[in-house]
Every structure is written in structure tokens, then in C-alpha cells.
């Protein structure tokens, strides 16, 4: 399959058309969606209109944008006007938002063609898509295994060549982990780089939208489109979208890269081996590698599982049956709220709402939520100290390659641990990505994680490009 950059170029030159690219994409979706359960909704009509608009712009001789005619898949926790948006939850089944997320508007303005909404763990809570109320997504590389999560559908769409690009959201690793498990490039941008307006919040202070792609260049191209200040999001960074594609070949010469013990320890040997080989490649490309330890990162998982559920317990309060989505009638309003939420939310969502409610309750706040905020501050400071000595950090994205269905569903802690390497970046509000590097068990891909301070996306993508070339891809 051609890259997004090639497709956009072909559409603009007239060698192809947006309508033709869409129909190729829809063919690929039809071929495997039943088997893999990637899309919760396919927006044929809307996609056709978007593609026709792109072709009309090209026909007029105007610039149709950097993603002209590129089919793209959208994680189903982003609002798109008139298109069912469910968060893979029964509580929102059938709801069609009357407005679009800022990222949707930006994608359309850049010529992209959103083909549909992809599966996820309910409200982005999970690491395998097994928590979707509408059934799990399968890993296109091995359908007996999970694609990761929570953005499993978006990862699978690209891995199955249904769309060359997709958009996910990353609260504790929900882009990087499925990218690693599906052999893709996945970026968790700096908090505030991409507008959250229209992203249905899981944990507002941690959520960030980012790209999935098969190549570093495609990921950078998409991130440039998504990024930039949005007056509708108060936490949006004030700067315009950074220049990323122009720096892709900057390399790593002279860069200091720290390999972090806490971002490797506990990973399978084959994963650790891949990280070591990646270090060698970066060293050969001119970087100096420093071994370091950031002990504070070990506290990340505990802090995350207080902060994220606490925010979620408040963010998900609005699903009360009063205004939209599911309503289960009962004798009075409180009983209706309770019946609706009992029927509408799945087990993991309920678990986190209860956890978060407890963590914020009078008498427990200081011991739990308050303590977690202190850990978060320590983590930010620890990263800042590390970045005084090094430019970037490297580690594993996930402890293992893609795991089998049911392997971790009975033990929430085991599932939570699959995000242990990715969570610290979200707590610190910084940037990180996962890039495929080598393979492990059964030929399944391994993801190497590169981490940097806020707004280091250009450096991260340039380093990822070095690994991508060494890995013999593109």
C-alpha cells in the first residue's frame, strides 16, 4: 500500500483521485472489517462528499492540502457532526453530535477523507479494545491477538491497510501501545499541541490526540495538520503548528540520548534486545548514549490510576440519561440516573468511576488524589532534571509483543502494567512516540519508545526516522 504522502501527491497531480482512493480504502475495509472489527461506523456518504470536494478543488487547480484525498480513520471518541459517536459505550449508542472536533475540521481542511469511526476500549479505558461494549478488535497481524488499546481500532485500520493514516488519543499510552503491538509509528504529542476540543474526555489533564501511520514521514505529515493553537481549548499551546516534516532528516548526530532503566526493566528479553539494538543504531548515527535511572517513574502507574479515574469520575458524570444517549426510566430522577448508568457503562468504566470517586472523597482526598498530584509534580521535576543532561530518552513502549485475547482481562493489574512504560509521559505532559524496531515472538513487531521534553516532536521524529531506515523500512 502506498503512503499517505504518495497518495496526496497522486491525487494532486491527477494520477489518482480522492474518490478512487476512497473506493480502494472502502474495498479494504469491506474485505476484513467483519473479521477484525475495526470500524464501529463507516461514513460512506460523508466520506464520498469529502472526497468529491477534494477532487473539485484539484480540478479547479487549487491546492487541496497536504493530505489531499487521503482516507483516514477516526477513533470513535472524537465528535464528528452528524456521525454516530459512541466511545464504544452503550451509554452513547445512537448519539450523533451536532458539532465536530477541531481535529476533524483540520483534517477536512487539509484534504483528508474521514472514512469512519474506529473501535476502542469503552471511553478509552483499557489496553486491548477488549473493553469495547461492541466487541473487541483483532490484531490484523495475528487475529488471535489483541491490537492493543485503547486506540486499537485506529491502529488496526492502518495495520490492515484499510487507511494509510488514523487518529487516536493517548491518555496513558493508548496510541503508543497499540502502535507497538501493530507495527506502526504512533505519536503522543506534547500536552496542548493538538486541540482536545471535541475529544470526549477520559482524563482531561492527560488526554492528547495523535497520529498513527506506517511511516515516520506520514506520521509527521499528519501531526503537522493536527497541531496548532485552538482558541476553543484553553489548554492549547499558544504556538502555531511546528515544522516537523522539514526536520525529518536532521538525524541524531551530536544528540545525547539517555536509556532509562525504569523504561526497560520488566520487559521481555526480546523487547530489551530491540531497545539495545536501537541504541547501537543511534550511536552509529552519531548520538551519544547515556545510561540513567529515573526512580520516580516507578510511581507513575499508581499516580496515574488515581488521577485518571478521578478526572474520569467527573468527566463521565454527564452521562446521566437526561439529555442524550441511553435513558433507562425509573420512578424519579436519581433512580433514572442510576438505572441509566448501571445499564450503560461497562465493568471497567464502572471500576474507574468508583475508584476516582473514592480518591476525591472528603477524608480520602489527601491520602489518594492529593498524594498522586505530588507524585506527578515529582515526575515532572525528575524528567526536567534528566533533560538537563540528555536531549531525548529511549526505552521500551510495551513489556511484550501483542498478547492473546483474554490473557489479561481477568486481572486488571496485569492489564494496567502493559502501560507502565508509557504512562510517565502523560503525567509529565511531554512528548513521546513508538516506532517499530525489529520483531519478537511469532514475528510480531516490537515498538521502541522515544521520549522528549515538551515540544520535542521534531527531534523525536528525526530520531525515529533513523531507526526506521536502519530497520529496513521505507
Amino acid at each position: 500500500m502506498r503512503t499517505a504522502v504518495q497518495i496526496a501527491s497522486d491525487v494532486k497531480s491527477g494520477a489518482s483521485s480522492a474518490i478512487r482512493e476512497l473506493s480502494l480504502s472502502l474495498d479494504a475495509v469491506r474485505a476484513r472489517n467483519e473479521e477484525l472489527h475495526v470500524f464501529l461506523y463507516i461514513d460512506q456518504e460523508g466520506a464520498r462528499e469529502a472526497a468529491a470536494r477534494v477532487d473539485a478543488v484539484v480540478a479547479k487547480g487549487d491546492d487541496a492540502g497536504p493530505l489531499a484525498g487521503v482516507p483516514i480513520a477516526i477513533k470513535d471518541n472524537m465528535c464528528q457532526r452528524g456521525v454516530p459517536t459512541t466511545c464504544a459505550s452503550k451509554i452513547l449508542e445512537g448519539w450523533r453530535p451536532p458539532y465536530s472536533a477541531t481535529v476533524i475540521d483540520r483534517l477536512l481542511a487539509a484534504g483528508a477523507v474521514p472514512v469512519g469511526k474506529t473501535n476502542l476500549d469503552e471511553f478509552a479505558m483499557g489496553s486491548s479494545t477488549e473493553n469495547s461494549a461492541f466487541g473487541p478488535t483483532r490484531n490484523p497481524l495475528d487475529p488471535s491477538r489483541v491490537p492493543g488499546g485503547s486506540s486499537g481500532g485506529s491502529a488496526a485500520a492502518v495495520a490492515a491497510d484499510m487507511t494509510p493514516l488514523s487518529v487516536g488519543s493517548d491518555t496513558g499510552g493508548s496510541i503508543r501501545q497499540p502502535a507497538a503491538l501493530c507495527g506502526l509509528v504512533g505519536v503522543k504529542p506534547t500536552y496542548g499541541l493538538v486541540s482536545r476540543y471535541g475529544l470526549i474526555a477520559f482524563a482531561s489533564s492527560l488526554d492528547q490526540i495523535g497520529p498513527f501511520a506506517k511511516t515516520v514521514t506520514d506520521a509527521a505529515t499528519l501531526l503537522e495538520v493536527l497541531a496548532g493553537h485552538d482558541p476553543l481549548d484553553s489548554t492549547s499551546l499558544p504556538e502555531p503548528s511546528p515544522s516537523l516534516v522539514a526536520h525529518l532528516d536532521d538525524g541524531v548526530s551530536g544528540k545525547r540520548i539517555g536509556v532509562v532503566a525504569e523504561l526497560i526493566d520488566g520487559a521481555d528479553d526480546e523487547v530489551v534486545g530491540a531497545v539495545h539494538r536501537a541504541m547501537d543504531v543511534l550511536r552509529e548515527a552519531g548520538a551519544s548514549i547515556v545510561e540513567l535511572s529515573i526512580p520516580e517513574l516507578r510511581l507513575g502507574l499508581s499516580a496515574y490510576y488515581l488521577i485518571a479515574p478521578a478526572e474520569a469520575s467527573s468527566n463521565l458524570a454527564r452521562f446521566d440519561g437526561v439529555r442524550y444517549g441511553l435513558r433507562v426510566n425509573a420512578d424519579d430522577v436519581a433512580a433514572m440516573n442510576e438505572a441509566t448508568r448501571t445499564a450503560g457503562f461497562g465493568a471497567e468504566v464502572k471500576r474507574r468511576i468508583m475508584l476516582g470517586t473514592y480518591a476525591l472523597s472528603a477524608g480520602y482526598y489527601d491520602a489518594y488524589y492529593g498524594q498522586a498530584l505530588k507524585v506527578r509534580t515529582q515526575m515532572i521535576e525528575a524528567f526536567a532534571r534528566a533533560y538537563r543532561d540528555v536531549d531525548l530518552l529511549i526505552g521500551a513502549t510495551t513489556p511484550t509483543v501483542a498478547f492473546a485475547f483474554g490473557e489479561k482481562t481477568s486481572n486488571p493489574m496485569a492489564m494496567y502494567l502493559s502501560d507502565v512504560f508509557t504512562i510517565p509521559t502523560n503525567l509529565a505532559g511531554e512528548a513521546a512516540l513508538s516506532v517499530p524496531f525489529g520483531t519478537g515472538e511469532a514475528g510480531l513487531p516490537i515498538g521502541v519508545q522515544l521520549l522528549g521534553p515538551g515540544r520535542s516532536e521534531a527531534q523525536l521524529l528525526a530520531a525515529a526516522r533513523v531507526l526506521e531506515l536502519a530497520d529496513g523500512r521505507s
Partner: protein
Amino acid sequence: MTLPNGWQMVVGLEVHTELKTASKMFCGCANVFGAQPNTNICPVCLGLPGSLPVLNERAVEFAMAIGLALHSNIAPSTFHRKNYFYPDMPKDFQISQHDLPINVGGYLDLPDASRVSIERAHLEEDTGKSTHLGGTGRLKGADRSLVDYNRSGVPLVEIVSGPDIRSSAQARAYAQELRGILIATGASDGRMEEGSMRIDANVSIRKANAPFGTRCEIKNLNSLRSLQRAIDYEALRQVGLLEGGGTVRQETRHWDENLGETSTMRIKEDADDYRYFREPDLVDLAPDQTWQERVRAGLPPMPAERRQKLSARLSHPTSAQLDAVEVVIDLGLEELVERAVDGGAEVTLAISRAANELAASIDNISNLSSESFTATLLMEQRGELSATQAKTVLCELLALGGDPQAIAVAMGYEQLSSGSLGATVATLIEQHPDEWARFCEGDEKLAQFFVGQVMRLTNGQANGKSVIAELQARR
């Protein structure tokens, strides 16, 4: 009202005021009262999934203006979420300020020279408005509940006083003075009947200098009269409880205006746990010195200063005149008064007519130009209108507008202007030569005879003083 047996009431007030911004607190929807239900709504104030709040700069400026007028410190502040379920609150949490409000401390001096401390004045968003059909009109037991989200997200400032108030009259004076300040800053229209200013009263009683007693909070008092009555009722209720050997239970109470009594709404022991935490969708709010100074520079004079300025025009003001000044300032009529005085009207007359006749028709005040007001007062001073006639002309002007001279003519007052009064007096002198001769010889009693005759001819519309002046001029 004084409480019996040496009991003293301790009152603190929480005043919520809607801010007169063009748009809502966190979105671009119009902030207007009385629109068709659910017409001023958008994804943000409906709390639709994915929507995010963006703080209204004007709301912050109004909050700062209120704080500055109350001598508060403008402090670096944050927003918190106050979490609880209620159908008229679309996110099921309210964005408010918690431990770090924008205005900290301050005080308000009342016209009687007492001072009430201010604890804080913070920003928050209003909820939607529920209407419950069937049952008692409350949520519980209603057949059906309708929600209008037009009010959802309207900016509010909540002003919390210290427990410094010691009588219902002082509470009323505080609320009235605060209302004047809110109107002066432009932050609020102060319309209690439309709910743009709502008051909760915390009431407890104690013996003088004893520690504070257990307090009850009376919710949503929406007129000054209700405020005063509710506080008196509640304080007396607590006296009755304590003197009967009982105790006061900390609770939230509802004021029934018709019954004239408070009743239990909910008991505080099972107070809600609002699970406050920092609103992650907003950034901290710390207005810098430049911004604060800009708001301070834009502040108009506050009621106390305006009262002082107007009272200074009175040489030895009586307490009735000072009360009138308070009314004039309260209703914002001092500009009319000032202009009339500058135009030659007597200051006591201008204040009196403003505090009585204009105050009585304050809703129609826009019908009255300062020129008409001045002209009417001058006609009265010149004797062209009697006091009764001047009042009538002002009422006409307020009701319908127009020109005072024309109104006087239309009312048949025109023959009483000095020319026509002279003609009437001349005729009477001709008809009563004997009485005139005795008056000319110095029998002053006969002046009253002529005044009486003039009154008879003019149906009592003539100005007695003017008649005497006419007689004196001809003697």
C-alpha cells in the same frame, strides 16, 4: 427588631449576582433574560461530550471591579469542579472557585457607618432552570420536569460576607448597598425579581459576646423584604427553640413568602461531598497589575461617595433629606438632580421630587429628560405651578413623556402663569373695591380673602404665595 431576653442575632450573607456580560461565562452564547427556552445554547453550555470551556474575559473584569469596589485583594486564583448530580446542571458538575478565589477579603461600609467584612467574592457559572409540573412544584413528586438551559453557564459572582451582621435591618442595608455597588460597577442590573441577584442568609443567635451558635442557612431570598422577614422569623424561631430547652440543628431552610416562615430543606449532617478538584480544562487565573489597574481606572464612583457628594450640596441636611439622598443614589437619579440644580432648581426641591415622584415611577424614568425635570422644577419655583400641579406634571411626563409647558397648558394650568394670575387678581380688585381699600390701608388679613377668591375661581389650582405676591405688587 430586637430579640427578646438579651439574645443577639449573627448573620452572614452570600449574595449571588449574575454578571451583565454579552455572552456566557465559557462560551459565545448570548447572556439574556427571558428568551424562549433553550434558544441560547451550544455544545459548551449544554455540556455536550467533548466540549471545553473558555473563560470570558469580561466576566473576569466584572469580578475584579466588584472586588476592587469591596476593597478586596485580587489574588491568583484557580477554578474547581463542584461535583453533584442535578438535571439542570448539564455537566453534573459546576465550575466554581474553591480554595483560591479571585477576590480575597475586603469590607463594605453601610450608610449608618457600620462596617461588614467581606470574606471572598468568587466567579462561578449558573445552572439551567428547572420547572416542575404537578405535585408540589418541587422536583420530588413532580409528574414531569422541564429544563431550560438558557441560564446554564451564565457568569455569576458570589460575594460572601463575614458573620458581622447583627440585625435584619442591617442585613437589608448591606444587601441594598451591595446592590448599589453591583449596579455602579456595571456588573449587574441588580434585578432581584428576575433572579439576577439572589441571597442566602446564614442566621444564628447567641447571648452578647458568647461564642457563635449553630447556624441555619436560608436559601434563595429574592427580595429585600423577604430577606428582612426571613431573618427575623428565623432568629425568633431559634430563640423559641433555645428558650424551650431545645437545640438548633444545622440545616438548610426554605423561606415561604406566603406563609411567612422558614422550613427544613435538608439537614447539613448529610451534607453533600462535592469532591472538589482543580478544573483541568481551564488554566489558572492571575490578573496582572496592569490589568487590575486598568479595571480600577475604569471604576465609576460608588454609592457612598455619590451620597456624600450630593449631601454636600445641602447646607444643614435633616435626616429626612439624607434619607431622600439615599433613595436618589440608590435609584441612580443623582444626575437628573445635579443637572436640575445646575439649571437653577433648588437642591432640596430637586432631591425631594426625585426621591418621591420620580422614585414612584422609576420603571418609566427613561420617559423623563433632564430638561423636562429642570423646567418643571423651575415652573414650580416661579409659582407658575403649585406643588400639587408640579407633581401632576411630573407624573404625566413619567407616564407619557412630552413637554412640561404643554402639559401644564393641556391641564388647564396655563392661566395660572404669572400673566393670567395678574389678570384674575386685577378683576377681583375691581369687583371688591372696599376689601382692596382696607388691604391697601394695611389690613393684612384681607390678603387671605383675595387668595380665597382666586382659589375659588381657579378651582384651587393657584399658588397662594404667587397671589400674595401679585397683591403686594399692586398695593
